[in-house]
């Protein structure tokens, strides 16, 4: 089977692929955002002293790390509306269901990442901040979060990039994102090289952009005065 570059370019610039990529990207972005939010609170609960919240977080992380995404998607899409009649309405779209499932799931993973990042912030930091009269919330916002961010960026970027590819699982609840589109094209024509190559180009572009953003973020969190030119960061 030769590589048909005409088909490849057609696929690459097709509306279906563009739309599929847009769905992947927006679903991944929103899910990751909510997952960071959930995960942060779960991490705080797990590190905190309140025994109810602590065990809630423990059970949540246990359960949602165990449940396969495929299964959770099916539950959220098929079973949940039977319990909550409101979800039987039109507005409860596959996109929303996928967003819910992936945010819940990824929240458990982000909780662990953020917990280890929080632990890596030196204890003296919180001590000094508290001594300055900061409330626990201020200590978090002004001292702990900026410092944990540096440690959390690479694994979070990992998760986010993984999430973009993970969205393809949402095809089980009839959401057609990038990889599903490619698979559809392949099964209709058996021309897998062209379709998957086109999908790969999309992923490479998306991941390149994310990696550039990531390295920008990491530079911002290097804590070196910008006035200095030759950054000596020995290791």
């Amino acid at each position, binding site marked *: 089977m030769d590589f048909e570059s005409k088909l490849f370019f057609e696929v690459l610039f097709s509306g279906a692929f563009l739309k599929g990529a847009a769905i992947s990207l927006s679903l991944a972005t929103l899910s990751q955002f909510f997952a960071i939010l959930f995960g942060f609170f779960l991490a705080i609960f797990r590190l905190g002293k309140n025994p109810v919240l602590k065990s809630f977080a423990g059970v949540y992380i246990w359960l949602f790390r165990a449940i396969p995404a495929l299964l959770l998607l099916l539950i959220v899409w098929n079973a949940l509306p039977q319990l909550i009649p409101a979800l039987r309405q039109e507005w409860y779209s596959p996109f929303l269901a996928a967003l819910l499932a992936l945010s819940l799931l990824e929240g458990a993973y982000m909780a662990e990442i953020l917990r280890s990042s929080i632990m890596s912030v*030196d204890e*003296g*930091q919180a*001590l*000094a*901040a*508290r*001594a*300055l*009269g*900061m*409330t*626990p919330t*201020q200590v978090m916002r*002004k*001292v702990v979060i*900026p*410092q944990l961010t*540096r440690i959390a960026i690479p694994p979070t970027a990992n998760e986010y990039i993984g999430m973009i590819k993970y969205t393809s699982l949402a095809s089980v609840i009839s959401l057609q994102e990038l990889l599903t589109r490619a698979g559809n094209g392949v099964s209709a024509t058996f021309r897998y090289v062209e379709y998957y190559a086109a999908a790969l180009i999309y992923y490479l572009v998306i991941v390149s952009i994310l990696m550039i953003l990531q390295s920008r973020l990491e530079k911002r*969190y290097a*804590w*070196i*005065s910008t*006035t*200095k030119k030759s950054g000596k960061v020995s290791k």
Partner: protein
Amino acid sequence: MDFYNQKEREGFQVSLIDVQKVEKYYGDNHILKGVDFKINAGQVKAIMGPSGSGKSTLLRLIALLEPVHSGKILFNGDLIAGNSDGSRAKPESEKVLALRRRGIGMVFQKFNLFPHLSAVENVMCALTTVQGLDKKDARNQSIHMLERVGLGDRITFFPSELSGGQQQRVAIARALVLAPQLMLFDEPTSALDPELVREVLKVMEKLAEDGMTMLVVTHEVGFARRVANEVLMFDEGEIVEALPPDQFFTNPSHERTKKFLEHVQ
């Protein structure tokens, strides 16, 4: 235990801080074994004592950074730590503590600067966050304070780019800029070079003259002599002696103090 013999200044009769029978355990280790003393507003007390005797722990307790086991601490006559009957105490919520803490400033043995903020941002940080000052004012005050500790040319440097001495000076500026009612210093000059020690001690002397109440863990005899109203000898979790500096350094009564002073002087 009536070894109090304070030079009480006119106009300051209220005890700003009053530590009563404070005990502290870490696990099974009994660190503070009933510590008892007060400081009137405007007074300066110095604490001396060997390593591991619990000096830093005592300061952390007064700064409300850790709960007391039993005993109590009064600030301005208000109970801020422990139970009013001095019995075994439950830890308070951090929010309540944050408010109570606002009159008390602390400088640490390790500097604990925020590595993600430049020197001036470290100093500004509490001004904008806790005191709610606007950025410009906070910045001006902070720069001024950094200049006073000799770091006017390093304001945009990050902690990792400063030498040990420079870092400690930023930490001191950060505490001083909040101008609290009570300042706790935990060996604030121990990592500073002699030249700079004097500058910093000058700042602290000036503060004392302005009526700031201070509790200073230090081994700077000169400073204690000039500035302190009283020097406390601390050993194995207890205050073993408390005397005005003249007497403390020339004629201490306790064996432990005599032995300790051999090393200091």
